[in-house]
């Protein structure tokens, strides 16, 4: 096993931070809410709207309750990390920058087979879509690479490039480890399992068996109502947070298996309405200032 202590999980993250910071990206911290993907971070969704340049990189913990496996599956987790980079407008050398970032974390493209394989992205919940690829390293998907075309139902003007690295997968690959819990978190003998195994066991149990569903339904309704309250009072960022909250509660209800197939579409529609409504309100609030600063831009 060509395990390299230089490439501990945390060192990998730090290397990415150094690299993207040097490219002029803001290094942000995770959004302090439970969410299913880094794309939900306002630094991605809301910042993808409007004409202002925006370059940021951050780690976002992601919660996917239905992916929990009680710590027994070597690849699947209900909580894991994504590394997000958002570059707006998408620079002409974005692919080269990305490939350099892989070299920084130890992937040599003359030893490993790197491929850009068509994979378009769509999030009906966010009213968003984009074209791009999943990036393969020796047949393994390590990054989702997307040029956002629409967000919240609005054309992205200009288009942002979004890179989403699956950190655990990349680290497993680089460290030559077959089980995520065996990853070296640092180079002093602390493993990923030491940090997260117990969490996975308990959270899987809670997600699937324990969470009180009556309370969850209640939370969903309250988040929905609060989103509307925020919209009515012209605080779209607050409204958007409630949409994110509703989305996660919905995922928990799914994991508890209490949403029937028929109801599922209806719940997804409600979340979508909240997310889109928040994006629309954000757009409406910011558009006049944007139009003034960027005369070539129009909503």
């Amino acid at each position: 096993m060509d395990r390299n202590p230089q490439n501990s999980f945390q060192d990998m993250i730090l290397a990415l931070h150094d690299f993207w910071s040097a490219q002029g990206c803001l290094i942000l911290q995770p959004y302090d809410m439970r969410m299913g993907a880094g794309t939900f971070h306002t630094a991605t969704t809301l910042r993808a709207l409007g004409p202002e340049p925006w370059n940021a990189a951050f780690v976002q913990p992601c919660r996917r309750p239905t992916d929990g496996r009680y710590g027994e599956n070597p690849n699947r987790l209900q909580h894991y990390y994504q590394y997000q980079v958002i570059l707006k407008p998408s620079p002409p050398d974005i692919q080269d920058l990305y490939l350099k970032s892989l070299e920084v974390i130890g992937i040599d493209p003359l030893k490993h087979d790197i491929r850009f394989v068509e994979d378009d992205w769509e999030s009906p919940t966010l009213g968003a879509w984009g074209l791009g690829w999943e990036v393969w390293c020796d047949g393994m998907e390590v990054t989702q690479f997307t040029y956002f075309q629409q967000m919240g139902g609005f054309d992205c003007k200009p288009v942002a490039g979004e890179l989403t690295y699956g950190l655990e997968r990349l680290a497993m690959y680089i460290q030559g480890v077959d089980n995520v819990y065996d990853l070296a978190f640092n180079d002093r003998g602390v493993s990923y399992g030491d940090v997260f195994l117990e969490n996975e066991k308990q959270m899987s149990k809670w997600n699937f068996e324990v969470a009180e569903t009556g309370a969850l339904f209640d939370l969903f309704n309250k988040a929905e109502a609060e989103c509307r309250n925020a919209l009515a009072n012209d605080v779209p960022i607050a409204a958007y947070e409630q949409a994110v909250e509703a989305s996660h509660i919905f995922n928990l209800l799914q994991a508890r298996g209490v949403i029937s197939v028929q109801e599922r579409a209806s719940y997804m529609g409600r979340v979508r309405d909240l997310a889109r409504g928040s994006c629309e309100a954000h757009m409406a609030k910011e558009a006049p200032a944007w139009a003034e600063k960027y005369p070539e831009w129009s909503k």
Partner: protein
Amino acid sequence: MSDFLLELRSEEIPARMQAGARAELEKLFRRELDAASVECGEITVWSTPRRLVLIARGLPLATEAVSEELKGPPVGAPDQAIDGFCRKAGVDKGQLETRDVKGRATYFAVKNVPGRATADLLAEAIPAIIRDFSWPKSMRWGAASISTESLRWVRPLSGIVALLGDDVVECEVHGVTSGAVTLGHRFHHSGDITIGNADDYAMKLRAGHVIVDHEERQDLIRSGAAKVASEAGLRLVEDEGLVIENAGLTEWPVPLLGRFEEDFLEVPPETIQLTARVNQKYFVCEDEKGELANAFICTANIEAEDGGARVVDGNRKVLAARLSDARFFWDVDRKKTLAEHAKGLERITFHEKLGAVADKVERVAKLARWLVEEEIVKPNTRHSREGGNPDNGGGTGNSGQLDPRLRGGDGLSRDDLADMAEQAARLAKADLVTEMVGEFPELQGLMGGYYARAEGLPDAVADAIRDHYKPVGQGDDVPTAPVTVAVSLADKLDTLRSFFSIDEKPTGSKDPFALRRAALGVIRIVQDNDLRFGVAQGDLLDFFADRLKVQQREAGVRHDLIDAVFALGGEDDLVRLLARVHALQSFMDSEDGANLLAGYKRAANILKKEDWHGAEGEIARTGEEDPLAIVDDPDLKAVVAAKMEQRHASELSYAAEPAEKALMDALANSEPAASRAIAAEDFSAAMAALAALRAPIDRFFEEVTVNADEENKRAHRLDLLARFRAAVHKVADFSRIEG
């Protein structure tokens, strides 16, 4: 003469779009040449993931000057006419020339279109091609995308090489400027490559580790994959789709063979092949016994320094993770019986107005049983098999004396068959709620078959579960094993009846529930197994008729012949209907058929001209558009027959002419003969009987005056023609036949 090279470089173009893009590039380039009236020699188009290339040979350096003369009005014509001519010709009045035409001074407009440099034409053509290029999906990118008017391309367009001869064709499209410089392989070549002309392009790129010709890459993958397989003592399972896809994903393809743990081979081979192919784009291999081997072949895009050992090892791990999932599903799914899985179908909605899948299963089970009990599907319907069951994927190794229940359903009693059809129908959808089918929906049916066999159900039941979706596409096998036929037919008929009952019919291009495919499936099962029953009524029968028409048309049956048979109406037995169509087709190909048709048309024209409705018309003038419709009205059949007989029997009030008599006699023979043949469903014989009318009808037209002065003669002769027409209509509505 000069050669032209165009390279459009972009970020990775999806593999599945490259063939279409090559065709589009050539089409648009030809469009531009045609518009400028430029001829060229051979055109070659190539693609890689990062470039689209076109080479056009033998372009002229300039277009020829064209001189055109237009003749106008004579001198002295009204000003209006002269002005109009000038407008049309696009010249001023002062530019007109005067020439003598047959002694008359006449205006001429002479236009000289100067020749243009081909380079200039191309400089305009390239941006037009790029702007008009149609991709299945396209996008905006970069700073320019602050406007939605910015250029759209499949992925960001990054460079244009345009060379006519050795010279750059200078142009610019949304900030991308043409030149002679391109890039080589993403990893094997750094720095620019400067192209000299169309001739050194492929060579220079090859030196930059790019094989621009997609067909060459495909060949490399095909032969390379076969080679690494044979070096490992295996045989490549050929897969042309994968060859093309991998060639679309690589600029320097290197097939590499890897091994996965042998233990994984315990899961069904289709599962392994599917996950390797769909998820990873790997080829698989067979051993000398033709069984799936524990090997995969991936196609790398690099010549790795270590010969690909790391690449193979990485791919092996990814595949192993996928195969562990598959094995996990296989193990978990088999912990429950299919009957237990089937309970989960209550939770799955089939359609909001049609209830759960479990409800559908209940209906299908009853229908499958009914099809057997009514002897529509019979034991051993068509094919008898010798010993064992050749298409039994599980292989129970039967030989010699067999319990028929263990075979494909041949030789079963009707009751056994009914029981098995019902049982198979009840379990056929159970795999939809298994983990494996949840992960790989393409394996629906197939997995059900495996699980059925694993729990020891009879092969006939397992086969029916496996094959009940068939036929899926046009080339797909049609079930013939009785149990499978019953379940497959019941499933499709139920789908059609259910959706028609809630008025969810396909419209135009919309067919969200694939009802057309279901109807075609029913038609093919009925056809191939010779199943005799009324498939449907009302709207649904019309729908079947439409599908049958499309199917027959595609099979090369003339559409007018199909119409001629369908126009008879009311037929719900598809086998009989097709027999009639096919008999008509071969009849119309014969000389008899063609001549009879000519006679028929002549008779029908006279009857139409004389507005003669014949005996039938007199009996019941229903006011319908087609008075002949009553001939097929069962309620009136007896009345018409009696009346006709009376008329035909009644003595003629005059002496019939020989040709008239001959036709009467021929009809007296042919009519009952045709009717008998039709009753016996021997349509060829019915048409042969009609063919006997050919000579008498020809002679009748030659020798007899229909519109005789005497009213009684005229009436009789028109009646005779009406009888002839009615006799022909028993077989098909010849008025629909062209020719």
